[in-house]
């Protein structure tokens, strides 16, 4: 693959100075949580390695992942898309359309067999033979299987590809299925979120290209550097949580003071993401900073956990919805009542037996 330019070649060709290039390497190392000693390693890799081809396919999704990705600030998506990776196929971003686009897909698969990264945005619906999502005249699930067959690794972009997201929410009529349940023989990185943070997306790709391997993954297959801590653990409102100071109602005095949104159903304590550290839109803000609780968009099945404004999950059974406390209180009440009645009957029986014994004795 010597005919393919290195990242550094492309960057220099685009007028990026060596000084800017080194700055970029430092920034990337910092974003990935690596020490200064990794800066020369990143620089060396980018100077010597050929660009890695990426095929980016879209299933059932809303394109919010792509929207997020192209708004990445550090490193600029332009750098990633145009310079660093050779994005050979992306239905949304590529110029080609129709047969030319599908031909580009086949070309890339053929040319880089076993070497390309498959980035999947959205998921395949499996019901009715996958007829609920047709791309290029075929069910998406077929395209996914075909593209995954010769891929080196797969990136599951967003909650759709990672967990199913809204289209997989109960009752899931199209049987939308996350990628890792369809493709089981390839390494898969889940980058959940609806959408994932732009810097997280570019960071993951940069890592894979620089080090030629997958980033360290946690038990759920997410890059540990971005998903190892809960939003709550790094939230700037955390001191108010520990103090027991909560927003009790929207727009109350405590809300204005910026107290913890726990009681308003903030899902920060149960959500693994980097929002409270990297934040959004070039580090401007994130939901909690804007006064609204986290909705837990990067968690498995977050649409099926009840209201975004409740702390407790709704437990559905026999068509009745209740949360753990309602079920528990009701059950404890029934048992308590039963105990009272049982105790009363016991006392009566005992009294009856005593008087009987007296008569008999």
């Amino acid at each position, binding site marked *: 693959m010597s005919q393919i330019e290195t990242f550094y070649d492309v960057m220099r060709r685009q007028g990026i100075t060596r000084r800017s290039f080194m700055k970029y390497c430092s920034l990337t190392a910092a974003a990935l949580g690596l020490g200064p000693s990794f800066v020369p390693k990143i620089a060396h890799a980018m100077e010597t390695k050929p660009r890695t081809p990426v095929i980016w396919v879209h299933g059932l999704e809303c394109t919010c992942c792509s929207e997020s990705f192209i708004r990445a600030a550090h490193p600029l998506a332009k750098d990633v898309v145009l310079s660093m990776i050779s994005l050979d196929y992306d239905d949304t971003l590529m110029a080609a359309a129709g047969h030319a686009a599908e031909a580009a897909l086949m070309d890339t698969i053929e040319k880089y067999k076993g070497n390309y990264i498959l980035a999947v945005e959205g998921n395949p619906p499996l019901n009715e033979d996958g007829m609920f999502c047709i791309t290029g005249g075929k069910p998406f699930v077929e395209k996914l299987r075909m593209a995954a067959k010769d891929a080196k690794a797969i990136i599951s972009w967003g909650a759709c590809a990672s967990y199913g997201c809204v289209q997989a929410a109960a009752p899931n009529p199209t049987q939308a299925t996350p990628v890792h349940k369809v493709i089981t023989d390839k390494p898969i990185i889940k980058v959940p979120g609806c959408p994932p943070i732009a810097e997280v997306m570019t960071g993951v790709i940069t890592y894979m290209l620089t080090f030629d391997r997958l980033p360290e993954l946690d038990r759920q297959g997410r890059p540990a550097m971005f998903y190892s801590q809960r939003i709550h653990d790094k939230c700037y409102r955390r001191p108010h949580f520990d103090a027991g100071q*909560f927003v009790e109602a929207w727009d109350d005095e405590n809300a204005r003071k910026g107290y913890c949104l726990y009681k308003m159903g903030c899902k920060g304590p149960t959500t693994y993401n980097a929002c409270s550290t990297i934040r959004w839109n070039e580090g401007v803000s994130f939901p909690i900073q804007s006064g609204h609780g986290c909705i837990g968009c990067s968690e498995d099945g977050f649409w099926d956990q009840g209201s975004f404004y409740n702390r407790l999950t709704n437990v559905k059974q026999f068509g009745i919805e209740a949360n753990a406390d309602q079920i528990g209180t009701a059950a404890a009440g029934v048992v308590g009542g039963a105990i009272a009645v049982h105790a009363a009957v016991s006392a009566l029986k005992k009294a009856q037996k005593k008087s009987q014994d007296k008569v008999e004795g």
Partner: protein
Amino acid sequence: MTGTPIPEGTILRPDPATSPAYEAARLTGDATAEDLESIRKRTSVYVYEAPVRLWHWINAACILVLIVSGYFIGAPLPSMQIGEPVEQFVMGYIRFAHFAAGMILTAAFAGRIYWGLMGNHHARQLFYVPVWKARWWKEMFFELRWYAFLEREPKKYIGHNPLAQLAMFFFMTLGLSFMIVTGWALYAEGAGQGSLPDTAFGWVLGLVQNSQRLHTLHHLGMWAIVIFTMIHIYAAIREDIMSRQSMVSTMISGHRTFKDDRPD
């Protein structure tokens, strides 16, 4: 009681002059003839050894703390304005109490398992249900009928009665294990990846996938323990009064005292 058979219905009244055994009772001056007869009938068996009793009460205290603090973690107290957040640690102390009690409960439960292996055979009753024994099933249905007021008189049991054993097994052995495992898995989230709790129990979150789902399971588990506690305390007091044996004091002294000497 060997030698000449005693005709049924005979009441053996100890002769205070020749029976020094009852001297203490006599000396108090309030012992009636019925009292002396009752002393003669009452027998006791040493059932619960000291480690079992110690575990029971530590466990009970931990569960009380865990239920109260756990409830207030799920549904916190109204916001307090004692001072700046740096001077105020209300939720922090509640969570500390919960974690500390959970760790004590875990250690105590481990000790209880150890004693299940080392102690007398009553100490093992908590950890299994002899479903393979027809006799156990028969007795369990008998006990059910007793609780449904269909039996006139209960039987005497030295350890747990079969119904109690079933409840203990499901709510304590399985229930506590469930709460310990889910509780530590939740604690591991805060302790961080790579920490000891995460290494030991992090797989649970991987299994349940969603942390909120794990919280909900732990929360439902609490209510199961609440319900068990209610039934347990009610049944212990009721049986203490209505059954033919001691209940409450047994968990203090370790001795099961029987109120009559009939053999059934």
